């Protein structure tokens, strides 16, 4: 065999082996691509959908949930109410750190069961200190513990929200009633918002959320608690699927001490306005200029 033919033979052999290795290595990508639905990939941004298109998508999601979990759910898109601007206040003198709010959030919002996800984290703080560095989230003892107070933290629905500014594709925005929402079908999963949020309010779906069919909350909102896809960011929406039709957030209903006050900032007769006008109120990390709609106060 002459040198050039040997060379050619080697190249053909190498090329074949290479192509085989490529085909083998690309298998998982091919399997992933086969599972990506074209309809979902080409779905437009929430704000660009007509009411009819949106209605069609809602039915589609319901059908899909039925197919996957065998559960009848209702996915709605409730618009913000006129003359309503939501705010939330939390009485630190009453909070006992029982984490019932975090639990209720977990159930209400169809969170991943494996990670025990929730939009609320409760910090056990040292009496006489605002230093979160000295706080604990993974306390495991009877509450309230002596010498401690408790500070639940969730999305502050900032009026100057860094998470909204940084999103490169406008997948997250502020609604007219003050709630910051995410279009789960538009988010590209870059997690820049997670880096930008000063309150650890955002969560990423590191895997497809796992929920037993029997535990699925069938009352779902397109922009809130519907079962999220894998690879997108989610957050607290003040339970807008409830609050936009006059109900209270799940975390408030679960609170055994009445530490939580939710309401309309524009209604002068609301409990919330009374708290803001009569209590010593503060917001978390005010110096960052994020203008939260979530207020803390003490009962003194």
């Amino acid at each position, binding site marked *: 065999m002459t040198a050039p033919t040997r060379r050619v033979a080697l*190249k053909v052999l*190498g090329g074949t082996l*290479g192509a085989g*290795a*490529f085909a*083998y*290595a*690309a*298998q*998982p*990508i*091919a*399997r*992933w691509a086969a*599972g*990506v639905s074209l309809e979902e*990939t080409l779905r437009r*941004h929430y704000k660009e959908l007509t009411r009819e298109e949106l209605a069609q998508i809602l039915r589609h999601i319901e059908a899909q949930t039925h197919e996957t979990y065998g559960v009848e759910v209702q996915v709605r898109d409730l618009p913000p109410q006129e003359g309503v601007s939501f705010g939330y206040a939390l009485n630190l003198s009453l909070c006992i750190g029982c984490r019932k709010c975090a639990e209720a959030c977990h159930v209400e919002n169809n969170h991943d069961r494996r990670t025990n996800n929730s939009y609320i984290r409760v*910090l056990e703080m040292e009496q006489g200190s605002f*230093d*979160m*560095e000295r*706080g604990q*989230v993974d306390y495991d003892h009877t509450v309230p513990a002596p010498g401690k107070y408790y500070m639940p*933290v969730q999305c502050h629905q900032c009026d100057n929200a*860094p998470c909204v*500014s*940084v*999103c*490169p*594709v406008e*997948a997250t925005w502020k609604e007219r009633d003050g709630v910051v929402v995410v279009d789960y079908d*538009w*988010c*590209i*999963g*870059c*997690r*820049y918002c*997670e*880096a*930008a*949020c*000063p*309150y*650890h309010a*955002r*969560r*990423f779906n*590191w*895997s*497809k959320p796992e929920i037993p069919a029997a535990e699925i909350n069938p009352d779902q909102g397109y922009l809130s608690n519907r079962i999220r*896809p*894998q*690879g*997108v*960011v989610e957050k607290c929406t003040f339970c807008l699927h409830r609050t936009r039709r006059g109900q209270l957030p799940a975390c408030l209903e679960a609170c055994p001490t009445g530490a939580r006050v939710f309401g309309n900032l524009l209604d002068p007769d609301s409990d919330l306005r009374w708290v803001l006008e009569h209590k010593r109120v503060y917001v978390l*990390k005010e110096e*960052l*200029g994020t203008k939260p709609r979530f207020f803390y106060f003490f009962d003194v």
Partner: protein
Amino acid sequence: MTDPADPIRLPDAPAPRSMAEPALTYLRFLRRAIALAFQGSWRFFAWMIVLSAIALVGMNAWGHQLLRGMQVTDLSDHVSWGLYIANFTFGVGLAAGAVMMVIPAYLYDDHDMHDVVIIGELLAIAAIVVCMGFVIVDMGRPDRLWHILPGIGRFHWPVSMLTWDVVVLNGYFLLNLHIAGYLLYQRYLGRRPKRRWYLPFVFLSIFWAISIHTVTAFLYQGLGGRPFWNSALLAPRFIATAFISGPAFVIIVLEVVRRYSSMKIGDGPSETLARVMRITVLLNLFMLASELFTALYTGGAHASAVRYLFFGAHGHHGLVPYIWTAVTLNVASAILLHLPRSRADRRWLLAACACAFVGVYLEKGMGLIVPAFIPSTLHELVEYAPSMTEWKVSAGIWAFGLMVLTVAIKIGLSVWTGRLTAQESAPEARA
């Protein structure tokens, strides 16, 4: 460029016989250039096969990540960016650093540098390819990439710094693709390149190089909730480190080219780049000291990330080995570069470059991205150590980038040294 003595120069405007002829000539150039990627010595093949294998392992790992979700990484809601974004950041610096060949070549008329400047431009292209790779593997939904295309998706410009990064990185990619492509193609045709078709782009690319790394720094330093990044010194440090890693890498590449190709390269370009590094390594150490002083002397919660990074906190020390290795290598490179031996003996210079390159890689990658998340914004201390998937995917992207660079330089040098020209191939077309 400046080679009036080119013996095989064609007339400036040969009359095309048909409208399609220039296009056909160009396609023939592309075909012959690509064919070069499949020819070479056994060393070349061995190198490319090893890189291909690593790239395939990476691609496979990424596939698993797509299927199972990013739970296969060690990232969490506490540390939501890690190895991928660290590599991305370093890659942007590498791309920007390549401009340190362009500035002497075009602004200061350094003729030795002019002869090899094409390598810098090709490095910029390969580095941007690497950056784009790391952005895509970090995305939870790469299938929705089109959402970020201006005009087609919803481009949140000018508010989101990430959209600025899309603009400047793609702009820099296209600029260098045009400059390198135009110069090489004209050389292939044996024509003198027209200054108006490349010089304005070259000068634009110099500003653009600074902008890509400034914008990338702004991406981080504009976040008020992350005190570790929220420092005006971040962008200057990014530029300084870019002008360490870029020149260091180019010096090593020049040595490889010198050793394994027929291209004659003098000591001039390497020495010029080493002179740049002698300044930037010190500048970077100075800025590091300044940041450390501010954080540690002031103390308090704003310094907790720095304390965790350098000394560990509450029994967690995950990043301590990374950062002290980085500091040690950076100091070592500064010492080596200032020893007279590094001027006389190329091996010393290469050792200094290797130290500087790895030092900056560790400092700017794991040492800069991860500690901003530890402790988290609610001051929880959750550590992060890249998973095997992350290492595989990252190695795969770097391997692919090196393949792009190798092929680009191989084609570039073949054209540059006159081994690949339109003349020999075109008797049938020109007859």
